């Protein structure tokens, strides 16, 4: 993957798409995990992957990851709503679990951490097949404390798997501040497994993108895994209906002021890459697109309980 001329626009698009769907779904569902403040990190991580690449996304940002891999917006939204038209037919949640046929590894039984191992397995499959596909394992700062994270990094390094680990460090896990969850440094952990590891400003989409490009190229070349820690901040609540009485309002406002979309917008305009009007047009188009998709999904049928076929739990032998 070389960076196309389109990259800045595409990044902007992904960032605004993330923000737009966040607002639309969040307004409807108080349990939706907000994305505000992390749009640059999310767009920078998931932009520009190739078809055979596999992602175990962090749950916060999983819908954007699926969209970046070509999933259909309306179908994903139907999945958030539990409609029968969803990729998973209403059986699961597309907010935390994207379509595997597009290379998405989700939270199947709900536990954070183990998907990093599944991503390592996808990387091993690519390596055994001699493909230049890679796997991304993305995790939050809180999730970094799961032993799975350590095991997967060590495994990927020992087996020299084509993999990139990314920590979406928003400095909090539900109500637990970074310092109460994570001792030392996540970047240092990556380095302790002997892999190239770097911290980047997660509010700077270009910085995230550049670090990703380097790490993915390295993985595709067969030179093994790397870690990127994207330092950002969860401006959003843990979920939309979070009362957030455990946090300092001022700190949130300080970070809100640094918000990544305005920053990137300013950059695109200042550098003459896009005009304000272009960007406004993208914004408007996305609002329209997401609203429409959501409305359509809302009207989709709910699954018929009678069709709840327990036989589907086992895959039948292929004919």
């Amino acid at each position, binding site marked *: 993957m070389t960076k196309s001329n389109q990259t800045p626009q595409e990044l902007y698009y992904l960032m605004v798409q993330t923000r737009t769907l966040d607002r639309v779904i969040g307004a409807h569902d108080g349990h939706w995990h907000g994305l505000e403040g992390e749009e640059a990190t999310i767009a920078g991580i998931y932009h520009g992957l190739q078809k055979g690449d596999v992602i175990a996304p962090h749950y916060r940002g999983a819908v954007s990851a699926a969209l970046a891999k070509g999933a259909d917006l309306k179908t994903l939204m139907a999945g958030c709503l*539990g*409609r029968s038209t969803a990729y998973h037919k209403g059986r*699961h*949640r597309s907010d935390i679990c994207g379509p595997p046929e597009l290379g998405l590894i989700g939270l199947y039984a709900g536990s954070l951490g183990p998907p990093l191992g599944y991503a390592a397995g996808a990387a091993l499959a690519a390596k055994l097949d001699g493909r230049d596909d890679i796997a991304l394992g993305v995790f939050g700062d809180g999730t970094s404390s799961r032993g799975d994270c350590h095991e997967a990094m060590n495994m990927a390094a020992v087996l020299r798997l084509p993999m990139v680990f990314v920590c979406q460090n928003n400095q909090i896990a*539900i109500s637990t501040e970074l310092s109460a969850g994570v001792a030392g440094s996540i970047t240092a952990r990556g380095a302790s497994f002997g892999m190239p590891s770097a911290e980047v400003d997660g509010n700077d989409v270009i910085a995230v993108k550049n670090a990703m490009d380097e790490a993915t190229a390295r993985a595709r070349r067969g030179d093994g895994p790397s870690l990127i820690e994207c330092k950002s901040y969860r401006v959003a609540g843990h979920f939309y209906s979070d009362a957030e009485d455990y946090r300092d309002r001022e700190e949130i406002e300080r970070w809100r002021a640094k918000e990544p979309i305005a920053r990137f917008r300013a950059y695109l305009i200042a550098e003459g890459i896009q005009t304000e009007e272009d960007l406004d047009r993208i914004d408007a188009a996305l609002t329209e697109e997401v609203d429409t998709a959501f409305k359509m999904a809302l009207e989709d049928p*709910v*699954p018929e*309980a009678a069709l*709840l076929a327990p036989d589907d739990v086992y895959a039948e032998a292929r004919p």
Partner: protein
Amino acid sequence: MTRMTFQQATVAAIADEMRADRDVFVMGEDIGRFGGPLRSNAGLFEEFGAEGRVIDTPISEGTFVGVGVGAAMYGKRPVVDLMFLEFLALVMQQFLDAGAMHYYSGGTQRVPLVVRAKFGVGPFHGHAYDHHSWLMNMPGVKIVAPSNPDDAYALMRAAIRDDNPVLFLEHMALYHAGKAEVDDDTPLSLGKASIAREGTDLSIYASALMTKRALAAAKVLAEDGISAEVVDLRTISPLDEATILTSARKTGRALVLSEAIGRGSSSNDVAALLAEQAFGDLKAPIRRLAPPNIPTPFARELEREYLPSEDRIVSAAKDLMG
């Protein structure tokens, strides 16, 4: 005597034990200032936080339950909040080790540990998985699943005082579902089922939400002239075999409910026990009612259909009456 919700009763029991015994402390993710999801530890931080007895942990389930095991080995009585039963798979080794310790140590080691877990199809969409049955086949571990606030209070106190590792189940559909009288003088002990309703025609075996549904079904059945006895297991492991057998011997018919999927469910132990030891008194085949053998579905419509409903309990009971 106070009126409390299930959630309030559970937290009150913990607080009372913390006041009575400085060795009791609580630990888990987001249980401090935040108070835990669904207010599962509400108020404890305010009262005991300054003493360091309310400990927020990183997201390391195996290890924070392990810390509970180790602290219990060396003098403390930890009450560890797993948040959701969904995460039981991550702490199996800790239960396995803890359950083996008393026996393997030659009887010197005690592990007075309580692990709390919310579960169950209910208002909190998702996180519903009922995995407790795995622990049935694990020596030395106890499992408790109250069906109402009064039992929640008494059983939580008993669990904290018990010198064995206990999984304490908190059903999310019962959690904030209305207040009931809580008697703080109830004598405390694990291992006793209760007859939640007396009856003569058939015995319905249940725990947690299934007990509530069984009781509702029993009312409907009574209108049709069928007298159902509801046995609330309360302690699922070890089972109160005497109470279970006595009821079936009396009524001659058994309907066994499960919120966990039928295959491998703890309710099969109840059925097998009856088939072995109450066989001669049974007038009809044992009947089991459980969700299909699939993961808990997400869509509300599917989720609803998944669990044994009051209606299905009623109709299974009628079938059983022949």
